[in-house]
Structures are given as structure tokens and as C-alpha cells.
């Protein structure tokens, strides 16, 4: 019962496997990996941004935003507009791609 303090996987977020799969490809394709480490991606593992190896999908997004999938998707797509003062740049993702990336990130949290 090591997971006793976490809710069991599957109930914390609605996991859409197809979206997770697309999201995991997108973070490499868009080059998020230039600044962040992701599980399952051996290279590159940039260190300019925080490691996401243990991203847990909890707490406010980037320290300030309410933790909702919509906010996470908006943040990965255009961080400076979503969280003024964020040092993370806007990234070349469409809105639906950003939702896939958010799904992938919540997927990491549920591993």
C-alpha cells in the first residue's frame, strides 16, 4: 500500500492512451527536450529547465496557475502569455497538440 497517500492511478486524470502517445512524440519533435528531461527519452536531456522525470501533476502549474488540463495545455503552448514572468518560451504547438502534451505529462504523473 505504498500508494496510500496518492489516489490510485486512472482516477486522478482521465488517461487517453492515444493522446499520451502523440504527446510523447511531440515533446521530442518540438524540441521541449532541449531544456527538460523526460522519462523514456534518453537524449537530449537539457538542463536549462526543470527535469520532468518525476513530474507529479500536482500543485499549481509552474507554481502559480490552477492545476487544470486546460491551463497545462495553454502553458506548454505559450508560457509567457499564460504565466506572466515565466522564463519558458512559447513553443510551436497547435492547440490540440498542446492538449496531447498535457495528457502525456499527466501520464508521467500517473506512472
Amino acid at each position, binding site marked *: 500500500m505504498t500508494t496510500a497517500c496518492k489516489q490510485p492511478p486512472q482516477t486522478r486524470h482521465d488517461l487517453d492512451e492515444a493522446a499520451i502517445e502523440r504527446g510523447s512524440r511531440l515533446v521530442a519533435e518540438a*524540441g521541449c527536450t*532541449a531544456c527538460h528531461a523526460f522519462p523514456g527519452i534518453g537524449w537530449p536531456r537539457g538542463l*536549462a529547465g526543470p527535469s520532468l522525470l518525476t513530474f507529479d501533476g500536482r500543485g499549481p502549474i509552474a507554481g502559480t496557475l490552477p492545476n487544470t488540463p486546460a491551463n497545462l495545455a495553454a502553458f506548454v503552448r*505559450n508560457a509567457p*502569455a499564460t504565466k506572466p514572468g515565466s*522564463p519558458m518560451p*512559447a513553443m510551436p504547438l497547435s492547440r490540440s497538440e498542446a492538449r496531447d502534451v498535457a495528457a502525456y505529462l499527466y501520464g508521467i504523473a500517473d506512472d
Partner: protein
Amino acid sequence: MWPPISMESPMTDASTVFDAWWGWPPPVLDPAGPYAESVTVLAWALFAMGAIVTAIVAAALFVAVAGPPRWKARLGGEHTVWIMGIAFPAVVLTGLLVWGLSLTASLTDPITGREPRIRVTAHMWWWDIEYLDAAGRVVRRDANELHLPVGQPVVLELKSADVIHSFWVPNLSGKEDMIPGRTNLLKVQADRPGRFGGICAEYCGGPHALMGFVAVAHPVAEFERWLSGTKVGAGPAVAQDVPGTVPAVTRRTPTAVDAAPQVGARDGQALFLANGCAACHRIAGTPANGLSGPDLTHLAGRLTLSGGILPNNRGTLQGWIADAQSIKPGNRMPSYDNLSAEDVAAIALWLETPR
């Protein structure tokens, strides 16, 4: 595979050299021009011959072990040895040699001197690329991206600034060494537009495995436009559909507006000059004139960063400037972790300006 080519918004279509190596057929078996074609045909013919001979040997082995006694006796006879052991290989190998030499003769076709010339100089671990005019003057200096006109041979002057490297775009030609103090000439030709992956094929230390580039073959008119420096986005829209790709038009490109909250009133050019970038990088029309790193004049139009390994966009550009060493360990650009994220954003925004 590659997204469609669009000169209008290269920053959105970015894809890296690694993309070119995925999928089937692999680039070595997918010639895009005559020089690669003859090598591929020869490779398949040799493979087929090898397969046939292996099958004959396996059949003979089977007969020798488990065949009827009459067949065994025949197989062991002197007659068989003369025919299968001497006559057959002599005829087949001679035939293959003559055919192979005539097939690959075109690889060493004389150079007429009228072909477009491009000088490619390998550095540890990136490529300096200079487009020459008929008189041998440099008309455009670029890096890590080789643009070619479709349907005509192009002569590459291959050089090295430091150690031995090797130039290889499997879709376009065989490998050619790049040796310090020498100029090796290599003819390449692409018969279809597209993007092809190139790599350094000779171990050259440290991040050798991350030393790639992208070769972009354009229809001639488009190539001329590109070479003459027509600003990105000018002229008729150019987009070819490369089979099997998803149009990238749904992607958005980060705009200057996106970066505004980070950049504020910071001056990217001043920061670039003040932080020593100019000692290694050249940007035409500015005081930056360093030569020990890639020319950044046309960075905005480039598909990739730092030797074909990252897509070129605001995020990867900032990540590279802030911490190049984590991305390409051992490369010759220092990580600028002494700069604030805002300063890095300002430099990136300035570098993204089309020139």
C-alpha cells in the same frame, strides 16, 4: 518523414536530421539521384549474387549430408570441382567486375567546371557551407544546411578545418573523406525535391554522433531565389507535398509578441555583442564577425540547430544558448548559464530576425 517544405515558415516545419533515418526504406536504399542510384543498384546486385551462391552451397551441403549415394558421388567428382569451383566463380566474378565498373564509372565523371559549386568545410562538430559563383567568390555563407537545385550535378569542395571528417548524404552519393589541407571534390545530384539527412561518417571525437546536417533539394527556380537571398516568405509560396507527411500548417510559430513579456526593452544585438558571441559567430551587416562557430546570418531560415540535431524554434534556440553543453556534450560553444532567461530570450528573438 519530413513535413512539407515551406520556405514561408521554416520555423514551423522544423525537423531534424534524425527524422531522415527513420522509416522504410532507409536512406541508403532510397537513392534520390544518379550517383546514389548506381551505388544502390550495385549493392542489390551483389546481395542477390551472394544469396544465390549461398543457396547453391546450402543445397550442395544438404546433398553431401543427406542426399542419395549417386548424387553424393557426383558432387564429389572432379568434374564438379572444375565447373562449380573454378569455371563458375571465374565467369561470374569477371562479369560482375566489368558490369560494376561500367555502372559506377559515372561516379568519376569528369567535372566540367560549369556545375554550381558549394564549399563544405567540416569543423568539430558542425558544417560551414559556402555557395560559390562561377568565379569562385562566396555568394552566400550558411551552416549545417545544404541547399541544392534539383536535376543537375553540383560539385562539392570538401574541406576540413581540423581533423578528418567524412561527408555522407546516403540518398545522394557515397561517402567522401574531408581531410585537413586537401580539397576533395564530390559530385552529387538530387532528382527529386525533398529533405535528406547528412552525417559525418568518420569518427572525429566527442560529439561526433551529433554532427549532422540537412540537405534540401529545391526546383531550380526556387533554389535560385533562395540563393539570391530573397527574403523568407517573398515570392510565390513554395510548398511541395512530400508523400507520407502531415501538413504542418496547423502548427503555430511563436511570434515576437509571444516573446515580448520576456524580452521587454532588452536589446538582443547589444547582448549578443557584449557577451562574446561575436567572437565566434558572424552575422552579416553587424559587427559580429567570428569564424570559429557557425555563421548565424541566415539562422532564422534554418530548419535545425547545432548540426541538424534539434528543430529550430524559439524554445530550442533559447535552450541551446542557455545550456549548449547539456544538449551536445563537449561541443565548442560554452553554456551561457550566467545570462538571465530574459537576456537569452532577447538574444534569441534578435537571432530569429530574417536577414
